[in-house]
């Protein structure tokens, strides 16, 4: 076999320009596969990482019943009984499988300090929210349980908000206006950056009870909680549904989504994207394969006399078949390796120059790209090689 590979290399280096041009098709094809799939794979890894970073074993309770799991806003339709603070209390008392429970009241509004103003997202939350969502203050303190009980007008702000309103001054203890209420700033969140397009530093947290007063809304948007451990996620969901159904005459009127559901849904999206990119890239690889087949057919014709001579010197049909098949294989796999090398180099360069760009070369991409070029080599080599092997030695020797 080594002999065959060596003589294939010899034949291919004997016609360097043609070999290089033939390989170019496969190089570009494999490069396209590598890069495009890396984009898809990188996006998936980024989303996985981001969604895992928002907390552990999170469960989101939304009002209304939805049979299908997935992404989407609050379920529409007949919400007979919205979520309330009493539901939160019940979950806290009876939810033995739950780590912590926090109400969420979503709203928005202008936050003003003196003559400066910023439109931010305002969330009414419970004391447990910070730990559940991995959002901690690095100055002051987060919203506390007694803030909810006493319906205090206190606020925790993100870095972007702080910067917009106070510049480099410390906002701690200052009073800002949110909607038509005055709030004292008690904490500043640590810097989180953007995630999936949201600026996590452009947030304001206030006690959920206070938020209900402020937004004139006495029900909750969501309840955020978490299972104590991964193995108990499904039981925890059942427990939540059970506790809340007991408070609704036995009717199950809530939908509980787990963090894994979110990751799963977005994973499906990115997988579909990766598959689509792979399909596009495969077309260029296919074109590369057709290029090899074309050149190999020309080569068989041009080397008809050589084939005759080899047969006279003792080559069997099998030897000739292998010779041309291996030449096609070498063209394709060397082209594949070069394409992979260029792709890997580009990805490494992008990764070191811009670490934020989600681009990732995983071993499976490399394996698939190399495997694909191998398959292209076989597929494009078989027809020319068989044609060469089936030549009659006498006809081949007489060929002018």
């Amino acid at each position, binding site marked *: *076999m080594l*002999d*065959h590979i*060596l*003589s294939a290399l*010899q034949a291919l280096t*004997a016609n360097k320009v043609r070999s290089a041009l033939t390989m170019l098709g496969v190089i570009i094809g494999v490069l396209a596969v590598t890069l495009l799939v890396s984009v898809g794979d990188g996006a998936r890894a980024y989303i996985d990482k981001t969604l895992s970073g928002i907390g552990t074993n999170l469960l989101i309770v939304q009002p209304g019943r939805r049979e299908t799991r997935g992404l989407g806003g609050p379920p529409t339709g007949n919400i007979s009984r919205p979520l309330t603070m009493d539901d939160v209390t019940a979950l806290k008392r009876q939810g033995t499988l739950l780590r912590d429970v926090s109400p969420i009241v979503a709203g928005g509004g202008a936050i003003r300090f003196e003559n400066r103003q910023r439109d931010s997202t305002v969330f009414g939350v419970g004391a447990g929210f910070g730990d559940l969502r991995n959002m901690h203050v690095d100055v002051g303190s987060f919203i506390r349980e007694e803030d909810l009980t006493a319906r205090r007008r206190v606020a925790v702000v993100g870095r972007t908000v702080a910067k917009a309103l106070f510049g480099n001054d410390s906002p701690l203890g200052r009073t800002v206006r949110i909607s038509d209420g005055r709030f004292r700033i008690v904490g500043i969140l640590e810097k989180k950056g953007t995630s999936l397009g949201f600026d996590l530093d452009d947030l304001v947290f206030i006690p959920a009870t206070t938020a209900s007063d402020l937004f004139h809304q006495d029900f909750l948007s969501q309840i955020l909680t978490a299972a104590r451990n991964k193995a108990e996620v499904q039981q925890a969901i059942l427990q939540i549904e059970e506790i809340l159904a007991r408070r609704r005459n036995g009717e199950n009127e809530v939908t509980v989504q787990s963090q894994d559901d979110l990751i799963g849904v977005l994973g499906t999206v990115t997988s579909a994207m990766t598959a689509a990119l792979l399909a596009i890239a495969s077309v260029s690889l296919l074109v590369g394969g057709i290029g090899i087949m074309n050149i190999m057919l020309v080569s068989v014709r041009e080397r008809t*006399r*050589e084939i*005759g*001579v*080899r*047969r*006279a*010197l*003792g*080559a*069997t*049909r*099998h*030897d000739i078949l*292998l010779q041309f098949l291996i030449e096609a294989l070498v063209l394709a796999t060397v082209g594949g390796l070069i394409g992979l090398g260029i792709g890997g180099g580009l990805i490494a360069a992008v990764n070191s120059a811009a670490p934020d760009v989600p681009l990732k070369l995983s071993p499976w991409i490399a394996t698939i790209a190399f495997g694909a070029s191998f398959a292209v080599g076989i597929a494009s080599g078989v027809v020319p090689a068989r044609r060469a092997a089936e030549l009659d*030695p*006498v006809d081949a*020797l007489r060929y002018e």
Partner: protein
Amino acid sequence: MATAAPAFAPLAREEHEALIEVSGLERTFMVGDEPLTVLRGIDFTIPRGAYVAIIGPSGSGKSTLMYQLGCLDTPSAGTVRLAGYDVGSLDDAELAALRNRFIGFVFQAFNLLPRTTAVDNVALPLRYAGVGLRERRRRAREALGRVALSHREDHTPERLSGGERQRVAIARAIVTEPALLLCDEPTGNLDQKVGREIVELFERLNDELGVTVIIVTHDPSLARRVRRVIKLVDGRLVHDGPPTADL
């Protein structure tokens, strides 16, 4: 993975007196729907160590006969035996092994691999005999020495003269130490002086190595130098014996 010679029952066959036995050989081709008979019942025997010319005008069937003797083609009727093997009964791989082991070909157009050094060209048949790379190179150099081309080992055909190319081709033909050297118009592409040198080389190889030499040619001056001439006209054997004046 080059196909090794099949397990020929060795010595008994190689001791076989006649190297080539042709009897009742016919070869018919289909040209469109019409059968065209090119060889019409040929009989002769060539012993080991013979030095023979096959001559005849164009279309006489001498090339077809050469392909039969070279085991590149099989008879339509009759038999060709090479070293005792009935050529018509062998399959593709067996024929290839037979060619590889018993026959060295020399062509009019040299037929060397382009852009491949002389030593690699000469070593090529050994690859199909399953000989390892180092041994191939060693034996190829030895064969180039026999044709006095040791100083051209690493030259590609493009850098060699016509005579040198044909000597490389002869080295390639003898590198497997074949019983038969089958030469198709070996001087056809060479000028007279170089052609004579090549013929002298065949004579020397015939003398020194005892290799059977068959030269297919239409060159009467070449035919006059051999000890035995087989002449074909229109697919029939019309002369088999020492060269005569009216060749």
